[in-house]
């Protein structure tokens, strides 16, 4: 048993915990463009000060949070009825329906985002459809706007929303709804007072599984967004690879972690609870 605990513990200590501490150390260093690597170790809050004084970074933080939040909400509104429908389908059809939700997840993330590039491109199919259907006479190019980023996030993370929702909805005992109906609850009231509260752990898990990666997302804003779409993951990437400012990129990483500690802790508590309920 000592070995069973020790091996993964050691591995994660070296390759996960230690790197996180390194990021913290580097973020407190100063940028030294002429040395390799471009850092001078020390104890300075210069990078953090820069992060909070420059409006550009603040705007990137805020728009990351906003885009992640609205995308999560849209994914919930679409994912909940989907999960509900699968959970209410005939038991022998559920595995197939669920597999159809999961299948895109097993294909490449990059390729799924790429699929939208063609669709949203200048004069692409979406634009043609909007014009043909009369929904918008002159929609303009969608690629390169925040709309496209939202769409990409919802599309990429929808399975993460549906799966935990399905897991809680599937366990819901039918007799509870019958009992509610028997006690005089109309279908919608029964939904609000029984189904919805009981699926809350699934809602929390699904929303966090979409929100957390969306905040730090890089590929989607990079490929679908335009120059005016600021997201913090992209800022980190550009500071690191384009500007070579390692301390500043590290400071962004530290802030991103601090920002997500709350949601991550919430997610873990939620998971631990639902695991406990099973044992």
């Amino acid at each position: 048993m000592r070995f069973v605990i020790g091996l993964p513990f050691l591995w994660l200590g070296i390759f996960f915990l230690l790197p996180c501490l390194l990021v913290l150390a580097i973020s407190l260093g100063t940028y030294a463009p002429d040395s390799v690597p471009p850092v001078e170790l020390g104890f300075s809050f210069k990078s953090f000060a820069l992060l909070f004084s420059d409006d550009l970074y603040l705007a990137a933080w805020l728009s990351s949070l906003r885009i992640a939040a609205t995308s999560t909400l849209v994914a919930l509104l679409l994912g909940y009825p989907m999960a509900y429908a699968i959970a209410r389908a005939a038991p022998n059809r559920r595995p197939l329906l669920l597999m159809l939700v999961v299948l895109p997840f097993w294909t490449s993330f990059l390729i799924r985002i790429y699929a939208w590039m063609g669709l949203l491109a200048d004069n692409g199919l979406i634009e043609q459809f909007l014009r043909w259907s009369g929904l918008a006479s002159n929609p303009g190019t969608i690629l390169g706007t925040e709309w496209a980023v939202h769409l990409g996030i919802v599309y990429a993370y929808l399975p993460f929303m549906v799966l935990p929702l399905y897991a809680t909805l599937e366990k819901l005992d039918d007799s509870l709804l019958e009992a509610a109906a028997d006690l005089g609850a109309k279908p919608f009231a029964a939904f609000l007072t029984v189904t919805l509260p009981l699926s809350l752990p699934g809602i929390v898990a699904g929303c966090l599984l979409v929100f957390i990666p969306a905040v730090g997302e890089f590929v989607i804003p990079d490929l679908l967004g335009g120059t005016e779409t600021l997201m913090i993951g992209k800022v980190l990437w550009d500071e690191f690879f384009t500007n070579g400012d390692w301390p500043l990129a590290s400071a962004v990483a530290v802030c991103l972690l601090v920002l997500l500690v709350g949601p991550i802790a919430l997610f873990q508590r939620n998971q631990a609870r639902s695991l406990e309920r099973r044992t």
Partner: protein
Amino acid sequence: MRGRARFAFGMLAFGYAFLYLPIALVIVYSFNESRLVTVWSGFSLKWWHALFANEAMLEAAWLSLRIALVSATGAALLGLAAGYALVRAPRFPGRTLFGSLVVAPMVMPEVVMGISMLLLFVGSERLFGGPDRGFLTIAIAHTTFSIAFVAIVVQSRLADFDRALEEAAMDLGATPWVTFRTITLPLIAPAVGSGWLLAFTLSLDDLILTQFVAGAQSQTLPMRVYSSVRLGVDPQINVLATIVVTIAACALILSGWLTRRKA
């Protein structure tokens, strides 16, 4: 009840259309004559030929496959140990830290993990002169990232596990190790297997972490794809997408068929 169900099934149909239409179009346009993915100009296999003649792309695919095999196997072993320890060792020093270390990589933003692992490898290069950035560093990064996913499936399978089965084995004379080998492992093997598959897929698909730790020489498949699509739409990528989707669909159908046959 009925009205709500109809609405839900309508949304389900819409959701499937949303999920699959873009993929379907990508597949269709892999057979397009034209370079443009907005205009259909006739059936052609020329982009298929082009992809299979693309040495750089094939080399990247081979590298990605090897990394995925190694890192998925590493993650399966470490994840199995971690998941087992989390369920079966209720108390040991540092258990809380261990528990968060196991799951944190799953929820950690990839850019953060990428930069932190790169800093580690840069540090070790300065201190110990290695390892060189490339296959090894990518495999280590992918393993670390995937442990969480294996551990979670193993953990939830073990939580459903009837402890009396292990007690029965020990009662019949099996030592703890023999019990694990003959009872526990065969029963959680499907969970370890699906964890391995998940780790394999994640490794094959990872871009961000890889970009940070890859170094100058190694180019994995997602890195090639990324640098290609950044410049715009490329029908060769449509061909690649078609292949990936076909493999994934076949694998899922096969695994679904296998589990059904077993049950």
